[in-house]
């Protein structure tokens, strides 16, 4: 049967010229079919195993949220510890996590929405070691949504006319339904997502409490998903409250039990951020002593647990828990 409208077309008004991770929904599907599991399997492992198995050099890495708040800080330190290289980060409302990974020599590209920027990032760019690609927080979250929907692109109503558009992979087209201009942005399917959660069972059924950036879209869009969790809970508990589940098991590849996994940031309702540590980091960046900072907090300790024991200490940990007095909406 002949198409009713052969020959019609949609005008591309303008296109950005920036490099971007190209979408390939069928490749994502094949990966899911061949490398992910539909059966309930025990996915618990150490941060070392999770990072070495699922984060390879050159990988496109997305995380949620950031080192200041409910972010996978312990997994990021393990990436530095294992000296991963040439990573491409999705910094959708990132913090100084991108700075740490860059200082660790792990990063060569960053899709940026917003992130903490200081000497480390600026110097890496000026030295040509780091390439930034400008997006926005919303556009990056939205590109992850596109990846989560399994489609190659999504339309959106901003970016057009800006320098961000000009340097991006976005396109401005004439909408075939309204005749008005509308932007398209390409889907992104990260090679791996790092997501820190409040509770998770051994299979990867995970619960997140509180507002978030795009944990669901990020997990769905990513080929591999590494969960770090404050608390391990039973699958029976998961099944008793299915409405509380944020991510179902089949999206998840690894479950790392990591109490204080966001340290020095906060997991609201559990522990507050360690402002003293954040100042230590800030000073190290200003004074150009990031190597010393990394040696102390990453390389000189074998694991997250060892860092907590030998560098933070139980008294500090107890203090951070005790001073997070506001638990309403999270655990009460």
């Amino acid at each position, binding site marked *: 049967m002949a198409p009713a409208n052969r020959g019609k077309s949609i005008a591309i008004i303008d296109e950005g010229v920036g490099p971007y991770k190209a979408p390939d929904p069928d490749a994502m599907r094949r990966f899911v079919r061949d490398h992910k599991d539909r059966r309930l399997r025990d996915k618990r492992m150490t941060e070392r195993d999770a990072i070495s198995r699922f984060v390879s050099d050159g990988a496109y890495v997305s995380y949620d949220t950031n080192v200041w708040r409910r972010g996978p800080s312990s997994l990021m330190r393990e990436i530095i510890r294992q000296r991963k290289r040439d990573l491409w980060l999705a910094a959708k409302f990132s913090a100084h996590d991108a700075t740490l990974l860059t200082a660790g020599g792990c990063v060569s590209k960053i899709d940026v929405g917003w992130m*903490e920027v200081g000497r480390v990032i600026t110097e890496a760019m000026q030295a040509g070691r780091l390439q*930034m690609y*400008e997006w926005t927080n919303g556009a990056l979250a939205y590109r992850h949504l596109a990846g989560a929907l399994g489609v190659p692109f999504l339309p959106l109503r*901003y970016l057009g006319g800006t320098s961000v558009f000009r340097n991006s992979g976005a396109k401005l087209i004439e909408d075939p339904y309204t005749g008005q201009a509308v932007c398209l942005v390409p889907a992104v399917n990260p090679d791996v997502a790092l997501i820190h959660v409040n509770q998770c069972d051994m299979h990867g059924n995970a619960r997140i409490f509180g*507002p978030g*950036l795009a*944990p669901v*879209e990020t997990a769905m869009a990513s080929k591999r998903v590494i969960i770090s969790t404050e608390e391990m809970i039973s699958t029976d508990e998961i099944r008793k409250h299915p409405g509380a589940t944020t991510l179902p098991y089949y999206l998840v590849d690894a479950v790392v039990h990591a109490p204080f996994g966001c340290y020095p940031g*906060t997991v*609201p309702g559990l522990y507050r951020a360690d402002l003293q540590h954040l100042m230590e980091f800030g000073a190290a960046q200003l004074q150009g002593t990031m190597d010393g900072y990394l040696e102390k907090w990453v390389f000189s300790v074998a694991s997250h647990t060892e860092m907590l024991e030998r560098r933070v200490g139980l008294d500090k940990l107890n203090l951070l828990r005790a001073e997070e007095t506001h638990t309403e909406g999270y655990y009460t």
Partner: protein
Amino acid sequence: MSGALAFTSTEAAIVYASRMMEEDRLYFVAIGGPPLLAILLSKHLRTPNIAYVVEDGTIAPEMPIPTPPFMIGAGLASSRAVAWTDMNTVDFHAGLGHLDYGLLAAVQVDAYGNFNSSFLGDDYDRPERRFGGPGGATEIAALCWRTILMTRLERRKFVSQLDFMSSPGFLDGTPGARERAGMPAETGPYRVVTERAVFGFDDETRRMKLIAIAPWTSVAEVLGAMEFTPLVAADLARLDLPTEEELAMLRANIDPTGRTISGEWISLEETGGRLRRADAGRAAGVPDPHTARAARRRAT
């Protein structure tokens, strides 16, 4: 002469922005920074029923005061919200037209309200100075009905040509420019607020227009602190000084750590009803002989 005689440039901008908040409206802000403080100041002093949505998906929270230190990493900042969603969801709410005002900070702004939060320099790949990036400002400036920008009044900030357009104002100012770029109709920048001048935009030309100045400065001084020349309203308004009440609330409850409200100190002295900067020498922008006289004229 009412009003305080010593405050920082940031405090002044926050106070002036807070006075623009309209009761019962819904605002879209990033997590932390002067825009959020302006909303909190107004909410606690003048407009208890304004609500705001934060980029992280927090909808209409009721943050207790004094506000927590390191707000951007404090769960308390999201407390007593009516809903905790996510970034895409609140962006969609803005896209649907539910968000009246976006309140944003800018590094550089041009005559059409386009602004830069990305970097300074000629080469994107080799920035002289790199900033955090557009953040959520691009979607907020595109999708909210009106955008209010906050920045310092300095020549390097009010520029003829942005080093990089992170977020849209009226683009090239031609009619329908935003719509042609794919943005929703009837949206755009509304005000640009600084420590000593407030700007609107001309309905036809979409060019920035000076609409109010502080009593201790002059049109000439303001124009001297800008690379481009804005229109000047015939009925130029006078910005009352920040009041002791506003500054007390701001310092004691809205930013008790003082981290965000720090800025250049502005100290004023009054002699015989005449108001001038005690530290005029340190005034930003080009030195302006007319300052004192102009201020005197206006103050009398």
